[in-house]
């Protein structure tokens, strides 16, 4: 079985919602569609207050290069375009839509049959990804049309599909593979065609034997799709680590995967690609895991984007357990604690993780004993303890010289630290300071 060479940890997996089939989340009364749900510049609204919209109608357009189109996830009337606070309470622009019925655009194919043939040329596929507002659903929400336009002079050799789902608790990719294997494989074939690569590799951690079996069987029907079981090790699903696991190549510091001939895509994205290209359905829904050790039931939901976290919790659990300590969007390692449950979900959302008070509390911090565990754990080969000291003493240039910007913020150092030092926090602060310093120098 393949794995990456350097570092890594093994947190408790806690995949307790694997057997919960994907349910349809009922429509909320109102949705708030944020204008920056992707990496890059926010999209520009092209509708006004009072306009009637249908499901899948373009409501905000990508005008900058690094940007993605946004479509209405519901049908109804535009209530207002106003400030909306996101999950961490920071104000963003959003389009509020009052839901009325569920009227879809006529162009969208809503039949359940699977459509396999595609006559589009590679360039047309990329153009359609742009039109449909597809972004990477692995967490970074990188606009797909940019990822699949290989720059001049570079060549893609490998298409790697990330189905490692190495984050504890999350099971949305697991369920998607179990229920939509065929569609996913068609999506992968489309991406393979867009890039013109001979083979696509699906990396799945070996703690998911069922999806590995299902995907292997389905992949047999397709040309050039290879399923690669991977060692269970966090962060197996991080882009650079996955490339190393599958191809043995290493992405140099400051370079992109395409520089070593790789393009990595999340499995959730491939399903969205299938729906966009074959069914004309823009990215208006995603699959969210609602899970937590102390919850009475575990769920995987297909939700319209823009529904608030409170709506999801109300439907799934009624109300939060009294002992709730934290609600997290994402997994325990890299997820963000939600401080504002009235915030809407975005394209990149993957879970609502409810953690118990005792489980979520940080352990008390003590002094560094130079044990070096963080160095062993770092999958990027960095020295987290050193960054901690450098950042604390404001020695930002030195931190930069030690490649602090290579940190992928996976949290392995913090996880492994016996002194419970918030190393990842300190490194993130350091990265911000380095970026500020670089901006000031320009």
């Amino acid at each position, binding site marked *: 079985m393949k794995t990456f060479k350097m570092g890594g940890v093994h947190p408790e997996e806690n995949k307790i919602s694997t057997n919960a089939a994907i349910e349809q989340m009922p429509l909320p009364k109102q949705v708030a569609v944020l204008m920056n749900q992707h990496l890059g510049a926010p999209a520009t609204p092209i509708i006004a207050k009072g306009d009637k919209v249908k499901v899948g109608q373009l409501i905000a357009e990508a005008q900058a290069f690094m940007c993605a189109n946004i479509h209405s996830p519901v049908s109804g009337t535009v209530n207002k375009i106003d400030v909306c606070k996101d999950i961490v309470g*920071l104000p963003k622009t959003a389009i509020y839509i009052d839901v009325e019925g569920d009227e879809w655009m006529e162009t969208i194919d809503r039949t359940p049959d699977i459509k396999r043939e595609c006559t589009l040329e590679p360039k047309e596929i990329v153009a359609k990804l742009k039109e449909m507002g597809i972004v990477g659903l692995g967490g970074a929400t990188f606009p797909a049309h940019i990822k699949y336009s290989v720059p001049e002079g570079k060549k893609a050799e490998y298409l790697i599909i990330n189905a490692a789902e190495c984050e504890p608790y999350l099971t949305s990719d697991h369920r998607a593979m179990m229920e939509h294997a065929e569609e996913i494989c068609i999506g992968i074939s489309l991406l393979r065609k867009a890039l013109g690569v001979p083979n696509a590799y699906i990396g799945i951690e070996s703690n998911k034997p069922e999806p590995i079996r299902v995907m292997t069987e389905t992949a047999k029907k397709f040309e050039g799709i290879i399923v690669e079981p991977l060692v269970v090790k966090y962060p197996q699903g991080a882009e650079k680590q996955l490339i190393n696991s599958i191809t043995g190549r290493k992405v140099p510091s400051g370079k992109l995967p395409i520089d070593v001939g790789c393009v990595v895509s999340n499995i959730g994205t491939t399903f969205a690609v299938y729906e966009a290209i074959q069914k004309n359905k823009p990215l208006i829904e995603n699959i969210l895991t609602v899970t937590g050790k102390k919850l009475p039931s575990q769920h995987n939901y297909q939700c319209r984007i823009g529904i608030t976290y409170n709506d999801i919790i109300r439907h799934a659990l009624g109300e939060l357990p009294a002992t709730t300590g934290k609600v997290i969007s994402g997994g325990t390692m890299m997820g*963000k604690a939600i401080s*504002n449950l009235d915030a809407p979900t975005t394209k990149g959302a993957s879970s609502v993780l409810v953690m118990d008070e005792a489980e979520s509390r940080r352990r008390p911090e003590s002094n560094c004993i130079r044990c070096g565990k963080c160095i062993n754990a770092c999958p990027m080969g960095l020295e987290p303890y050193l960054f901690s000291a450098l950042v604390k003493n404001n020695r930002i240039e030195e931190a930069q010289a030690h490649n602090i910007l290579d940190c992928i913020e996976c949290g392995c150092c913090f996880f492994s630290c016996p002194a419970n030092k918030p190393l990842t*926090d300190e490194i*993130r*602060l350091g990265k911000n*300071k380095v970026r500020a310093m670089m901006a000031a120098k320009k």
Partner: protein
Amino acid sequence: MILTAVLVLGLIGIIFAIVLYFVAQKFKVLEDPLIDEIAEVLPGANCGGCGKAGCRAMAEAFVKQGNMDGLHCPAGGEEVAKKVAALLGCTPEISDPMVAVVRCNGSCANAVSKNNYDGLADCAFANSVYAGESGCVFGCLGLGNCAKACQFGALSMDPETGLPKVDDDKCTACGACVKACPRGIIELRKKGVKNRRVYVACRNKEKGAAARKSCIAACIGCGKCEKTCPFGAIKVENNLAYIDFNLCRLCRKCVAECPTGAIHAVNFPPLPPKKETPATGTPAPAPAPAKAPEAAPAQAN
């Protein structure tokens, strides 16, 4: 035996002393002794408030320039300026004494915590990850970067309010805290006669309702103060009032007018009871103390 050792070592010592003497003569660096004298007079805290790398660098700048134009040691104030002027033989450059003012009133009581932050205790980091415990994106995060930055022990975090507190006597207005605050809450303002100051203790630029949601003492941008001010010192921009300290005459009319108690008047004697009000009923608004946020909680729910 001992004698030989003493003689040999003594001789070596003398030879080196002679060599060192000539080397020192040859490579002597001529420095104006005035630099040392001025550096002696400067506070020596190396706070960087003057914009130079430290007090020594400032002393060099003084001597190089020969006068005090454009060079000002905020930490030393008038006293140091006079001494430096005496040494340089020029007229002292004296500017109005300034003081750091915390423009946030999001105390634990006013801006109630809606979540608990347990991450790295650093304001700059907390500011990069989320809005703050009260939900106010403009308010104090209470993790004390300003207090850590202060070289003079003039800033401390008040455990009761969760806000930084400035000791007027110790503050030298060097500006270190202003730079340290990621939210720009601290401002250097004129110290004022008898330390009396009137300022808007809020930086929230949200619309009134949104601002009040996170903090009951927030400026809601209603503009009452702007209309009341007889000197045109108050401007409301982006839902936030700002008092220009160069125009403010400390009349305190705006303080009484502010519906949320966002305008603070400090170090004033208590206001005399208002001109006998016709209604003899509730005496509630009359004894407005120096800080008047207590007037607000009624509207909390």
